[in-house]
């Protein structure tokens, strides 16, 4: 076989091997999702989603866990979105190329890499104990808010950078101050990107377990949380406890809970992707 022919055969083999590798990487995930639907699907009844657990969790529904997760997610957004957006505004509109900026970026990258259980410890030490919030929605939300802050900052920064310089220049040349320009021209055009970041952060926060274990989560509460200082149940923690702490747990409930959590988180991811795509198409500049 000539050299060129041989190379082409090698190429075919190599491409095939790579395709195989990609398939191996991806197939299990598809399998997992299918399994979840098959085994958890039957449990997904309206009663399951809206009633309280009974009989030591072995029957009934997961309503309080869903509610707790939603409250946590709300609290997380309230904290992380304004702070994260303003931090991104600092990076794109105010910061110079100096060392402070580099340190800030390094800090953000580090915040993104800190293990979630360490955030849990920090939340425990600072919010629950030192600031005496107790294990509460407030402590949990603040902890989660810190955890997802890098996500919000990164997405907001991307959105702000996408606004053309020409708009800023036109505004400044008309006698606007920097903040006026940001508030009236830059931010309004960055909103879709900020929303994308928010939804991604929400997805991340909803699936977190280690960070809420010591800061808010409770094994079982007979009533729904009624103040920021209450404890709460949450879906991820619930899944953890029913799969490891409760003997004799019906399989269906475990799979159902896992499926609900997965669907919740995936719906956020999907929403973020849709917002991002629609925004790109609608943009007229």
């Amino acid at each position, binding site marked *: 076989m000539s050299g060129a022919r041989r*190379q082409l055969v090698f*190429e075919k083999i*190599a491409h095939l091997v*790579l395709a195989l*590798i*990609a398939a191996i*990487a*991806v197939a*299990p*995930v*598809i399998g*997992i*999702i299918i399994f*979840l639907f098959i085994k958890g699907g039957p449990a997904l009844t309206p009663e399951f989603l809206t009633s309280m657990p009974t009989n030591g969790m072995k029957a009934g529904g997961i309503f309080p866990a869903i509610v707790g997760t939603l409250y946590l997610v709300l609290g997380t957004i309230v904290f992380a979105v304004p*702070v*994260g957006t*303003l*931090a991104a505004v*600092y990076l794109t*509109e*105010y*910061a110079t190329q100096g060392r*402070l900026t580099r*340190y*800030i970026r390094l*800090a953000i*990258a*580090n*915040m993104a*890499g*800190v*293990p*979630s*259980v*360490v*955030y*849990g*410890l*920090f939340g*425990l*030490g600072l919010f629950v*104990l030192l600031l005496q919030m107790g294990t509460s929605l407030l402590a949990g939300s603040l902890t989660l808010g*810190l955890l997802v802050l890098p996500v919000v*900052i990164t997405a907001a920064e991307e959105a702000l950078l996408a606004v053309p310089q020409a708009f800023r220049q036109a505004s400044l040349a008309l006698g606007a*101050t*920097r*903040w006026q320009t940001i508030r009236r021209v830059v931010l309004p055009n960055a909103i879709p990107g900020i929303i994308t970041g928010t939804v991604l952060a929400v997805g*991340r926060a909803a*699936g977190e*377990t*280690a960070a809420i*274990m010591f800061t808010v989560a409770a094994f079982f509460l007979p009533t729904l949380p009624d103040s920021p200082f209450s404890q709460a149940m949450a879906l991820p923690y619930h899944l*953890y406890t029913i*799969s490891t702490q409760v003997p004799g747990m019906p399989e269906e409930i*475990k799979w159902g809970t*896992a499926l609900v959590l997965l669907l919740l*988180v*995936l719906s*956020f*991811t999907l929403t973020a992707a849709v917002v991002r795509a629609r925004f790109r198409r609608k943009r007229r500049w």
Partner: protein
Amino acid sequence: MRTAQKIKEVLIGKLILACGVLSIAVVVLIFVFLLRDAFSLFDSYPLIDFITGRKWYPISEPPVFGILPLVLGSLLVTAIAILLAIPLGVGTAIYIAEVAPGWLKEILKPLMEIVAAIPSVVLAFIGLTLLAPYLQGLLDLNTGLTALTGGIMLAFMALPTIVSIAEDAINAVPRSYREGSLAMGATRWQTTQRVVVPAAMSGISASVMLGIGRAIGETMVVLMVTGNAAVMPTSVDSVLKPVRTLTGTIAQEMGEAVFNGPHYFALFAIGLVLFVITFAVNWIADLVLYRYREGE
């Protein structure tokens, strides 16, 4: 500008600066908190015994806090995960960036984003309910909750990180490199193998480092799937035996630790070790990525 407006402008500027600097404050604060409680332990328990002790018996009288089994456990599980995730991740990245036809790219990339979004507790649950019993049966083990099981599930967690960053790195290789190679009569595969991948190497290395960081820091998967036995994983078949990681220890034992007691401080000390490790890994990855971006 009227004075009132000028004052408002300055105040807003300060608020925004505060938000920007907050990230630094948080990192420093986390470090300080961990340090403070960790050092409370080292008042009464020698640091050297903590780091090199081969036994972790937090509830014995007196308690023994040696983290070596935990560190080795973390390293073992991470090593297994990375050994699986590097070929799978880098291979997939190359496939997506260089080989896959357009329509397939549009399927694979969102799929990777979905994998990245799956909550760790769900993956842990799958590992616990599906993989562990399967491995137990397949390999005739006492229990399916082993380092190997944990390593496999962790590989799934690290995979999307490696794929996405490595893929970015490969895509960033200038077209002129590829065109130069093809113009000399090389095949696409030869170009990929000899020109593109080497050129993307620092980005690929950074992706691996970040994948390692992700694996070391993961909690729920190792908590639920590795069997939680704080033993020294020193023989080859430790791979098929239960093991305990740094992260799993904190999650497992914080509920039982007496507030402000030595066990409590010891767990914070573990947190400090984790923080330092991930800080170091991130710093190195940042250096590598920074150099790579500079060189463009």
